[in-house]
């Protein structure tokens, strides 16, 4: 019983972060059918900005975090305007490869500015929220889950409330058709890139508050698992992204709890999650939740 509770708590805590990353992957994907491979590094860059403002410039925590998110959004929008917009006719994979450059560039800037010494930002919420059967659940963890769920609901429902939001949802199906109803496609695309990067910063701020320290490139594993969550949920499905991210977190926690101690090889949970990814891609490429194939 205690085992199960541990798995659930660890799984949901990690899964929440994966879900946020999955959400940011899907957000960008919907606007331009591109996987932004720089998301987590841009997220980490935003985290660095927040940390610097808070630690060095003594800006209040909430404002520092807000500015970090704003920095991420700016990078996303700039990249869309300067690069993605010029690649309207290029293969989608080529645009994804271009994001690799952004990832490496942000990584380089972080390294030059800060080096590999670990930094830490204070958690958004202090202390233990409650205990389940003795297992402590941190306030931050509860807060992260609340943020992820709220953002997912906000993105799926609030977008439907405005004309612009509808254009964002419609763009996933056919960008040209969006232009033909007179909606500004470029703004839709810029929005999805900005929102994706902003979400990634939020994810990294929350993940840092559970792992306590960060260095440039610390989010690689988080990105892969979030990306897998996005694919498992069906790339392009916002709700599916949250479910996929949580599923990946739970699978990882379950393997760590019940399998890894009995196997004399490292990385079992990553291998398992990778296996899940392959199985989903080969058997249900449209994702677990999406009803029909396109």
């Amino acid at each position, binding site marked *: 019983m205690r085992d199960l509770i541990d798995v659930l708590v660890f799984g949901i805590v990690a899964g929440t972060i994966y879900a946020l990353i999955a959400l940011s992957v899907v957000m960008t994907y919907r606007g331009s059918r591109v996987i932004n491979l720089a998301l987590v590094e841009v997220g980490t860059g935003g985290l660095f900005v927040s940390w610097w403002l808070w630690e060095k410039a003594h800006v209040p925590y909430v404002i520092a975090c807000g500015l970090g998110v704003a920095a991420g959004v700016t990078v996303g929008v700039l990249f869309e305007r300067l690069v993605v917009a010029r690649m309207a006719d290029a293969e989608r994979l080529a645009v994804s490869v271009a994001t690799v450059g952004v990832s490496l560039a942000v990584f380089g800037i972080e390294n030059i500015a800060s080096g590999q010494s670990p930094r830490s930002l204070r958690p958004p919420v202090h202390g233990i929220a409650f205990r389940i059967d003795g297992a402590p659940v941190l306030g931050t963890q509860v807060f992260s889950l609340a943020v992820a769920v709220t953002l997912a609901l906000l993105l799926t429902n609030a977008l439907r409330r405005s*004309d612009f939001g*509808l254009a964002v*949802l419609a763009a*996933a*199906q056919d960008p040209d058709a969006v232009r*033909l*109803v*007179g*909606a*500004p496609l470029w703004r839709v695309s810029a929005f999805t890139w900005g929102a994706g990067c902003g979400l990634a910063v939020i994810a990294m701020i929350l993940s840092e508050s559970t792992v306590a320290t960060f260095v440039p490139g610390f989010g690689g594993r988080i990105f892969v698992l979030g990306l897998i969550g996005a694919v498992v949920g069906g790339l392009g499905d916002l709700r599916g992204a949250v479910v996929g991210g949580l599923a990946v977190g739970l699978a990882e926690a379950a393997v760590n709890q019940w399998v890894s101690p009995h196997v004399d090889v490292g990385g079992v949970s990553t291998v398992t999650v990778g296996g899940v990814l392959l199985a989903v891609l080969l058997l249900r490429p449209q994702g677990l939740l999406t009803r029909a194939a396109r």
Partner: protein
Amino acid sequence: MSAPLLEVSGVTAGFGPTTVLHGVELTVAEGTIAGVFGLNGAGKSVLMKVVAGLVPARSGVLRLDGRDITRSSAEARVRAGMAHVPQGRQVFRELTVAENLRLGGYALRRRDREAASSALAEVYERFPLLAQRRSQIAGTMSGGQQAALSVARALVGRPRLICVDEPSAGLAPSVAQELLASLSALRGSGVTMLLVEQNLAFGLRLADTATLLQTGAVMHSGPVADLDPDLLASLLGVGRLVSGQVAKALGRG
């Protein structure tokens, strides 16, 4: 005859090394339905994309209501009064009927909220079925209903000009019939329409004027009533097979 609403003069366009349109001339008078006909590869759909602003014209001028729109973006042209019924009844499948129609009114609502809501009410009146199903996801509707929705989505922006791209292509015959019915119903309501079509029966039934394209150039252009059936038949590659039928379709059999 009033001044043309759409004027395409000397338009040349293509992709990469290929030039598809060679100096195309076309005018659409206010309140009329202009048909553009031709075989596959004649350049019909490229012409439609040039008019829509999805493919740039290499040379030549496009005017909408006297205004030069050659360099305008597709969005700006919609704001200036164009609407589109894209090929293959492309509605937004993941969105509801009401959401599809809201997107159709995107440009108008920014200009005039009240006009947008009264246009929506009119469209619902014209298509009572859509009014009943406004919260249904568009992708779950039948082909004919989606076709009606794609026409309704174009109308809801109160356009000056509706561009209809190959309405019959890729549709089951019964669906094409329903689409034809939706479009025919617009006749006489003062709507101006540019129609690109390969299916003669479909096109000739709707159009007031016909422009015949062959390998990217205009071979003939004039009122449907004055069309020479033999010319039409030979240009469309149906030859002696159907020239008699074409004459009938033109009402001169």
